[in-house]
């Protein structure tokens, strides 16, 4: 039941097209809300599907939007790529009002997007999807050697970690010195 449309702008979102509802339509009309990601594409999502996201559910409850207001003001998630948000919306729609199974076969298969998906899902606070994503991340290194794991997960060596730590300390020291100098300048 999800729908998406290439939005024109976040301020004035175009009318989203709605995908045909399933044959067994609910008796009570369902309320819909709108979200968009970095690409400004607006996604129409039912309140039931959005219940998966603790963040959006909280926003809806706090704002008390009417459907018209919701249409005029889609929730902006500028830190989430459009295709990632699409995956999230699809998952929420597929699992709307259903108990989530222990193993999710509908999980997105695009591994290259997995990292961004975990970050998005973590931000949107969708606990069940996060669980599946983390499992998927863990599966990436199943049966792999330390060298292979280091490559797959881009793990720095101890020497690289130490160098990065030194660099961070150096930067922090410079910043602190800069702030002290600025404060001294202000005082003069």
């Amino acid at each position, binding site marked *: 039941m999800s729908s998406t449309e290439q939005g024109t702008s976040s301020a004035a979102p175009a009318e989203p097209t709605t995908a045909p509802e399933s044959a067994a339509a609910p008796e009570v009309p369902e309320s819909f809300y709108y979200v968009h990601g970095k690409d400004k594409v607006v996604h129409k999502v039912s309140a039931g599907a959005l219940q998966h996201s603790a963040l959006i559910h909280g926003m809806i409850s706090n704002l008390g939007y009417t459907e018209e207001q919701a249409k005029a003001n889609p929730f902006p998630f500028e830190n989430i790529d459009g295709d990632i948000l699409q995956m999230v919306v699809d998952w929420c729609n597929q699992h709307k009002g259903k108990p989530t199974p222990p193993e999710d076969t509908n999980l997105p298969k695009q591994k290259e997007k997995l*990292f961004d998906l975990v970050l998005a899902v973590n931000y949107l606070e969708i606990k069940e999807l996060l669980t599946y994503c983390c499992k998927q991340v863990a599966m990436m290194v199943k049966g792999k050697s330390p060298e292979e794991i280091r490559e797959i997960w881009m793990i720095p060596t101890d020497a690289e970690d130490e160098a990065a730590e030194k660099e961070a300390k150096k930067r922090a020291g410079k910043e602190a010195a800069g702030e002290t100098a600025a404060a001294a300048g202000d005082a003069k």
Partner: protein
Amino acid sequence: MPIRILSLPVADLQYALNCMDTWDLVAFSLCSKRTKNLVKFTVRKIKKIEANVYDCRICLTVQAFQTIQNFVFIGIHDSCITLDFGKGTELWRKQGFTQRNWIPHFLDIFHESKIHSLVIMNVRLWDMDTVKQCIPKCQTLRIRENCYIKFENIEFLQLCSIAENAEIEKNIFTNENHISKFLNLNLRSVHLSDWDNPFKLELNDLLTANSINITIQTANIRENELNRYLKLWMKGNNIFNRPSYMKLSLIHEIDRDEVLRGIKYQIVDNECSLNRADGKKLSISIQRNSVDFEFQ
């Protein structure tokens, strides 16, 4: 398709690690100090680690929880280990590691302070000091009957010092390397077993024994030594007697009356009960070829 796992939010990272198989976690822990610490935070437990020492090599048998593979056999070399998961062998390498770093690493990530058992197999030339450096502590030390090494005092006692219990399947004691030095190592239990070459025991060995549970099969001791031991115990000469149970399977048949000659005792449940003036009790069961002491 790389993914920067260490950039994930901590909770997500920990959840992903919790989903991992134990052996994938071990591999992850070997990537860097940071990954090792992350693995420690998962608080994954291990069922059992057993180390078998052969000539110039140590092999581990590791039994883990939450893993498809029940047992994994690990051969420890210098900076690498070979792992046998039952479907071929894998080689894992860790730069900067030597033979002595591997077992402490496994113990550390699984929050264990000691391995479950250290088994000395058919060793001829192995330097026991190296074993001690590789294995910080063990629950049970087993010396197998096919072990060829002649244990010199210092080496042997050093090895026993890392154990809580000791099981020796071969009479490795000599006049120089006397059994009393082994019986007074303050262990939780000692089990000596050699049917072909009995362990020679004297009164002094029993008097100085300070391990809690002692089983010796077979022991070579005379009735009069046992009788003197019981008389000294009755006099309370060894007040700080630590053993709570001692079983001696004897090489020859013994005369019960000779063992109990001149000692006051009561028969309780077919056992002789000896009561000392300070209230301590000793139940002694004497069979044809064995004597059991139970100190209360």
